[in-house]
């Protein structure tokens, strides 16, 4: 395995490239989801009556963007337009702010000495944003969606915080670059698999995705998505994919050794690993059932939280010994 070079901060202008890259990753996530939906429709056991609205497959993100951009924007009576728009547009902003601290190979836009906490603060922003997206429409269904997300957040946030702290404890630093450097001999996924799994589950949860998408559940007419159409819906859906992509990208420096890998340059390895994690997170949607937030609370606090604390204990003992 080649030696990992230290992370260097590049000019702030590269933030544009980071945004484009995040857009491409989010689009490929949406495209992969479209392919899975297409396969389910054509090859699956579904009765013919369910096969309405065929998926566009890999072209889904383009087709959906074109469709939603031409669609009229819905407004509702006495909507809190300000908070609604902040919530809808904010998800992409939160994802963009997350990727500023994620190194691509050895380049990073912002080499913050508290990069891990920065990522954490941005995912907490999502609490407020999703709730505002639910509140703003002045509609019962979307408000219930917003409340569901906060209830779910109370269950996933503490395990997520400890899952983020675990690599930082092993590296002895909150700087993402130091966490990557600390994995030069052994990737953290080996010593802290539990923290990795909890981190991935939490990314799915703060992206309102798959088993944790009850805030946008079909039982409440789409919840936070119930009243949004046109460009608003596009921003909200794109924000979810962007959050998934940013979360998957953050797993790479934290647990998967950053850009380390044979043959390919380190930036390419970062992208390959990100796409692999993103693909798994996207696919989870069709494998696991929806979890109600009120049922999530007990296992999250009774089982997951003590388990992740044990994980930190083990990692702390390992790093004290070495």
């Amino acid at each position: 395995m080649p030696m990992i070079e230290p992370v260097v901060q590049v000019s702030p202008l590269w933030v544009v490239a980071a945004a484009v890259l995040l857009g491409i990753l989010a689009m490929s996530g949406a495209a992969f989801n479209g392919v899975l939906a297409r396969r389910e429709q054509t090859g699956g056991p579904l009765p013919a009556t369910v096969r309405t609205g065929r998926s566009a497959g890999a072209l889904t993100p383009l087709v959906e963007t074109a469709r939603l951009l031409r669609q009229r924007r819905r407004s509702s009576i006495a909507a809190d337009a300000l908070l609604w728009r902040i919530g809808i547009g904010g998800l992409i902003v939160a994802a963009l702010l997350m990727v500023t601290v994620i190194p691509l190979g050895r380049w990073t836009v912002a080499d913050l000495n508290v990069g891990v906490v920065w990522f954490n603060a941005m995912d907490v922003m999502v609490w407020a944003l999703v709730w505002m997206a639910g509140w703003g429409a002045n509609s019962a269904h979307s408000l219930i969606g917003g409340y569901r997300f906060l209830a779910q957040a109370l269950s996933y946030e503490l395990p997520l915080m400890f899952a983020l702290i675990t690599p930082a404890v092993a590296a002895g630093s909150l700087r993402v670059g130091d966490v990557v450097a600390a994995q030069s001999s052994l990737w953290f996924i080996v010593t802290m698999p539990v923290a990795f799994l909890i981190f991935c589950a939490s990314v799915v949860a703060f992206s309102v995705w798959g088993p944790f998408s009850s805030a946008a559940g079909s039982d409440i007419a789409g919840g936070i998505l119930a009243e949004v159409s046109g460009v608003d819906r596009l921003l909200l859906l794109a924000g979810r994919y962007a959050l998934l992509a940013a979360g998957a990208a953050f797993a790479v420096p934290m647990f998967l050794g950053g850009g380390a890998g044979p043959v390919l340059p380190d930036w390419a390895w970062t992208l390959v690993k990100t796409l692999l994690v993103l693909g798994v997170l996207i696919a989870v949607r069709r494998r696991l059932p929806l979890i109600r937030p009120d049922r999530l609370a007990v296992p999250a606090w009774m089982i997951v939280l003590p388990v992740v604390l044990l994980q930190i204990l083990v990692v702390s003992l390992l790093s004290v010994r070495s």
Partner: protein
Amino acid sequence: MFTSIAFWLLAVIAVVSGAAVFRVDSMARATYALAVSFVAVGAILLLFDLDYVGVITILMMMMEMAIMGVFMIMFMGMNPALMPMDMVHSKKASAAVSLSVFVMLSALALLIPWPSRRGSPDGDVTAALGEALMESKMLVMLVISSILFATIVASLVLANPGGRYGQASDGAIGGKQRARHPDGGGK
């Protein structure tokens, strides 16, 4: 130069959004106006190179305000929290109290003989601040904080999650675990 501009900008945002809390007519907007004010204060802390304290302030305050908004709306009773409403009550008394506190605090800030800087800031400002605040009690606080957290988790684990109408996770609270039929037969 940049620091001064950023400081004044953030200070104005913090004060204006703090005032907006009492001017807006909805609980949700009041809550998030307060959140904006706190985020601006957190960003001011970043200007002092207190990176950890600044980011953690933003994190904690966003989390707190998101939860507080729900409780504010919930405890308003009936449904006025969902309708436009006035954010102020006992106007005269509260105006007097807030004015006198403001005058007192700003007088303190202006009149106090601030010490002039000696030497240069420590490399790790966060650690220096922590040591200045805690000094010899640092180790005690470090130990206590983990014990406190373990206590919270342990008490949740030990608390009886079941009730007479079933498990709390199914939406029931209080009493015994097994549901009983009113005529005593059990089911």
